[in-house]
């Protein structure tokens, strides 16, 4: 594996340097290089890349931003990984739920729900959505922008099939149920037990053997980082779990 990765790796560093020198020569400007896609690696590959080769990733003479998988934060070597880089940033999800499931939303949560509604309504005419449908889209997205867009798109199709001009809560419910069925296929009973623990504690065991990181990766668990980091169960999945 080492033999396979290293040639590509040194090639990547060389390419970054070549590009930045060319641009600097042509424009006399400094370059910021964004390396996307490195967050899609498995946790094992990400550990090899950012831990074993981390110090070389900062070799290019320009500023470079690398994306990395969230689960790497919970890796035992993450502290050393951080030392190779100037900063590490987490791009947070919108906080659309409270740490305690039954707690009423605080002003900050309400604001973030409002912000996510704006994101959805920037992509479509707001009057095409009934208010209850928009509320449900925001809630069941768990604050993940991509999920909110995907659910909106699906609900739109359901409304179109019925020949309706507005998206009603009922259309969102159908989209959510379809999504829930997929999670139901994916999750084992053991994993559902872990999710019940997260629902009660808002915390995870970061030991890779404990099984929580896989659930974080498949979005059954959502990480929120507003003030402090905590974990919530994806609202779509809630109905698959036993009542407390």
């Amino acid at each position, binding site marked *: 594996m080492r033999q396979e990765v290293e040639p590509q790796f040194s090639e990547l560093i060389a390419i970054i340097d070549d590009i930045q020198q060319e641009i600097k020569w042509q424009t006399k400007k400094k370059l910021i290089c964004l390396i996307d*896609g490195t*967050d*899609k690696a498995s946790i094992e590959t990400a550990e090899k890349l950012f831990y074993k080769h981390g110090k070389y990733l900062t070799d290019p003479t320009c500023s470079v931003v690398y994306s990395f998988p969230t689960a790497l934060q919970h890796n035992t070597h993450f502290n050393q990984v951080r030392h190779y880089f100037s900063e590490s940033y987490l791009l947070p999800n919108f906080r659309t739920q409270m740490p305690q499931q039954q707690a009423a939303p605080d002003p900050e949560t309400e604001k973030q729900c409002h912000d996510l509604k704006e994101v959805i309504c920037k992509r479509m005419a707001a009057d095409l959505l009934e208010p209850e449908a928009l509320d449900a889209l925001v809630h069941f997205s768990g604050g993940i922008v*991509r999920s909110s867009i*995907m659910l909106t*798109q*699906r609900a*739109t*199709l*359901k409304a*179109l*099939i019925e020949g309706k001009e507005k998206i009603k809560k009922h259309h969102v419910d159908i989209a959510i149920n*379809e999504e829930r069925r*997929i999670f139901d*296929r*994916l999750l084992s009973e053991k994993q559902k037990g872990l999710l019940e623990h997260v629902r009660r504690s808002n915390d995870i065991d970061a030991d890779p053997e404990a099984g929580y990181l896989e659930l974080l*990766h*498949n*979005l059954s668990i959502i990480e929120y980082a507003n003030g402090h980091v905590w974990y919530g169960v994806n609202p779509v999945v809630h109905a698959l779990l036993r009542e407390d």
Partner: protein
Amino acid sequence: MRAVAPSQVDNWTKKLKELSLLIKFSPQSILAFGIFRSPDDISHLKKALSSELAMPIVEQRFEHQVSSPLTILRELPSDKRHIIFSIYQGDLDKNLSSYAGFANIQREVLNDVPHVLLMFFRERALTDFIKQAPDFWAWRSAVLDFQSEAPLSLQEAWQAIESQEQPRITDREALEARAQGYKELIESYAYNQDRDDNYLGRTYFRLASTLEDLTEYEEP
């Protein structure tokens, strides 16, 4: 075509309509997943979609020596929108890992092309694919179930195997249905921790016999 219940026809028609609307209303590339049970499910959909939309449909099947399901997206002309049926019919082994790995790493190609990529899996294989290509999966626009009614229930297949009597079937469609039933039985049973290897072996034997019988028939 096997007879199907009216509610199943309604459901199938709704799924077809949903897919057609999705393609009509989304001018950019689309990634959708389809669940199939038998090859008939796909040919039935292809025929129906061809009459709904005036778009060329390209079919690719992946089984052994799997390569990237996304390569074709770059090979097709980008000035004409195509629908690609990418059908995974291999086993649940390293081939699926490689197929999923390519998809997960190369998903960005979907940003550069106008095509519709419809990836077909059997139910069990889809679940494994999702686990192995979570980032690619996150880009889906729809998951549509086009499975026809089970051609042969697991119970029926089990009874046939246990009775040690291989019914003589002389109809290609029925043979395909039986082979599919055995495949599903093996798929669901092979991962059972308490499995009886003799029983599994007999099922493989029945599948092999059925597939051999099928070679006597020409493709329709």
